[in-house]
Each structure stands twice: as structure tokens, then as C-alpha cells.
């Protein structure tokens, strides 16, 4: 059977092509797949579409990829004032940005994972977010149509994994990771700990193995920011 556990970070990202659409987990410094991001930096892939709540903090998290000019388009909710490399590229029009409300960003990814073709929401009605989107009234409420956000890869961070791909997350480092794991064609999880199959209680599994395609252990290293 094809093994999901990889021993090297560079191996686990080896097939990521230029132009790939990649979801990156993490929020507020917690749950970022920083080791995978740095492997992408070493690999030097270009023209990436990044789907991520924010755009890094200086040289941290996605910051390195913007510094290295690897990302051409971003779908994000809050790029962030400290995302200095992104902000520079954005000001220079080297990166384009689709701003999406945070919950809708997540819900659009979930729709992709759940095999739904779009949904109506009141969020964003009458705002810039509604520009170019279909608007209609349902059950007496103005709503806009939001479409699924799909990706080739999800790069996520978990605490524990077993060899089958069952994952758990630590505290608030859970955030976007379980949803992105459901939404991408190939989900790659950077984990702190590999544990024996069967040692995660079936009732405590947060991301079931079916959503996880590759696992690499990368304890300790955080970001170079």
C-alpha cells in the first residue's frame, strides 16, 4: 500500500508545480505549516496562488514566499499590516488579491470539500465583497452567491498523526487546518509527533485519515522570522 509518511520535507513537496493553487493553514501565529513553507521556498516554485487567512508576518510564515516573489495571487481575509513583503509586492502590483470575509473564506473552502456548487449568504451584501457577485432575495433576505474555493494542495499543520493520516491539533492551532484538509486535492500535513496507529481514540480524531495524503514530521522548527 502506498505509504503516506514521508521522511524528508523536500521530498514531500517535490511534485508541487509552478502555478499551483495551495491552501495554507494557520491563524494568528498558531498552526502554520512553517516547515512546509520553507521547503517550498527552497524548491523555488513560482506563480503560486495562495489561499490563506493572512499573508505572513515580515519574514515569518508566508512572508518568505512573498519576499522570494513566489506568489502571484492571494485569496485572503486579512493579509495583515505586518505582512511587509506581501504589502510591498501588492503596492508594486506584483501580487493580486481577492479579499474574502474570514468565515466565508472558510465556508467556500468547505463547500469545495463537501461537493457543494455554491451557497447564498447575507455576509457582504452591500459591501465591496459583493461586487460582481449574483445578488438575490431568499426568504426575504438579500444575499449573494459565493462559489467554492478549490485547491491543488492543502499545506497544513497538526500536532499528532498516525501512519494512516488521522490527525489531532493542539489548542487554537486547529483553526483553518481541518477545513483545508477537506478541500484540496492533495493534503500534506506537517506534524509534531507521529504516533502508533490506534493510539488516537477514534472519538478524538479531528481530521479523519481519508483527508490526508502525505505526512511529514517536523518537530520544533518554527519560522525564520
Amino acid at each position, binding site marked *: 500500500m502506498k505509504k503516506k509518511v514521508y521522511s524528508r520535507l523536500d521530498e514531500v513537496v517535490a511534485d508541487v508545480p509552478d502555478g499551483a493553487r495551495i491552501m495554507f493553514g494557520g491563524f494568528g501565529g498558531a498552526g502554520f505549516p512553517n516547515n512546509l513553507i520553507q521547503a517550498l521556498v527552497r524548491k523555488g516554485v513560482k506563480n503560486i496562488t495562495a489561499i490563506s487567512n493572512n499573508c505572513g508576518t515580515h519574514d515569518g510564515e508566508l512572508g518568505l514566499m512573498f519576499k522570494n516573489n513566489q506568489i502571484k495571487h492571494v485569496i485572503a481575509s486579512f493579509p495583515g499590516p505586518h505582512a511587509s513583503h506581501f504589502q510591498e509586492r501588492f503596492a508594486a502590483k506584483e501580487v493580486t488579491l481577492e479579499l474574502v470575509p474570514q468565515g466565508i473564506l472558510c465556508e467556500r473552502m468547505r463547500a469545495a*470539500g*463537501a*461537493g457543494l456548487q455554491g451557497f447564498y449568504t447575507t455576509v457582504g451584501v452591500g459591501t465591496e465583497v459583493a461586487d460582481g457577485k449574483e445578488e438575490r432575495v431568499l426568504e426575504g433576505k438579500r444575499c449573494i452567491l459565493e462559489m467554492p474555493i478549490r485547491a491543488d494542495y492543502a499545506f497544513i499543520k497538526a500536532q499528532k498523526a498516525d501512519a*494512516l493520516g488521522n490527525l489531532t491539533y493542539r489548542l487554537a492551532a486547529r483553526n483553518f487546518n481541518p477545513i483545508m484538509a*477537506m478541500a484540496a486535492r492533495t493534503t500534506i500535513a506537517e506534524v509534531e509527533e507521529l504516533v502508533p496507529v490506534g493510539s488516537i481514540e477514534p472519538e478524538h480524531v479531528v481530521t479523519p*485519515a*481519508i483527508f490526508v495524503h502525505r505526512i511529514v514530521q517536523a518537530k520544533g522548527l518554527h519560522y525564520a522570522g
Partner: protein
Amino acid sequence: MPAETVREKALLEKPRLTREQIAGRAALELPDGAYVNLGWGIPNLIANYLPGEITVYFHSENGILGMGRRAKPGEEDYDLVDAMKIPVTLIPGASFFHQADAHLMTRGGHLDVAVLGGFQVSEKGDLANWKIPGAKGSGGIGGAMDISAGAKKLIVCMEHVTKDGAPKIVKKCTYPLTGLECVDTVITDLAVVDVSPEGLVLREVAPGWRPQDVQKLTGAPLMTKGRVPEIRLP
């Protein structure tokens, strides 16, 4: 009585595969490491026929991944049942999740293979498997529509003809539909048939059956690609 009908009646008396053999053949379609959902009826027998060298992870739409064998007498736990309400066991590395995630897996293209029972399959791969026209009672859909809409590969296991000898593989389904253009492969007591963009392809025939005899009991044209081998059995 026209000669053709007499001949088909004779055909109906020839030996066909048992339900267990259909399940055994279907088991060979499951790749190592696959995530698989098995529906009611013949599909539910498939788990008994898995080749020993492969591992398959069974999904149950009530919220289990990694279902094991059925519980033995005395071992039953009625909080651990499959979608047919039958007590089961778990394999190591199993997980539980709620119904929304269970069907996110079916609809969202996460299952590698789903195997469902069928009343009719059309030459385009339409499936009818939830309601017999004129049957009493409310009927019920269950998970079949979500599963048929989303599985990467959908196999239907069923008898090739009804009890009255009418083909169940047809040009157009006359029974209420479960899903459109969703079936990839049909495994019956007479044949393995693939649905392709060009039409139905007869891949294998039951022992002692000729392609032209299977065609006579089929309501839509079957193409062949060279010699059609006998059905593989585990």
C-alpha cells in the same frame, strides 16, 4: 411463442453467479488503500471477499471510517452499528464523525470507490436503486443519492435481469432515478460491464456464457474490445 423468446427462456435457466460470487468479483475492483462505501444488498457482502494482501478502509455513512468485521454474538454494541443497523467492529486507526462530515466525504469526492445495489442502470450510467414503481409504503432514499453523486468510482452490483427475466441494464431507466451518469461499472451474475462515453463495454462474462447471450438479456447495446474473458473470481 417466437423462437427468440424461447431461446432467452432457455438462457435464463443456465447457471449464473451467486450473490456471493458477484460480491467476490466486486472485491477485486477495490485498490489497496482505498476508502470504500458499501451499500445495502450484495455490496454488503464484499467485505468477506477481500484479497488478504490489500487493506481497504470502509466508510459508513452514519459516521465511521475504518469499520471492521461484523460483531460476533456477545460482542455487539448498539452504539457501534453500520448504516444497515448491524453491530460492527473497528479496525485500528478508525474514527467517528458527525453526519455532515460523513456525507462531505461521499459528496465531496473523497471516497475512492462506492458500491451500491441497483434496480436499473442505463447505458449512460444513470442509476435507479431506491424505489420500485407502484411499491407500497413511503420508500426511502438514505445515502444513495449523495454517494452516487460523489464517489470517484461507482460500481453497481445487481442481478442482470429481474425475476421475470427483464433486463436491468437498459437504454433509459424507467424506475425513479437515484443519479444521472454516475455509474462506472456494473457487476452482475452474468457480466462485468463498464460505462464509457461511447456506450457500454462488456468486459467479462460469467463462466459458460457467450457475449451474444449476455447481449440478449441486456436492454442496451454492449460493445466488446477483442475477446471477452471469463469473470475473474477470487
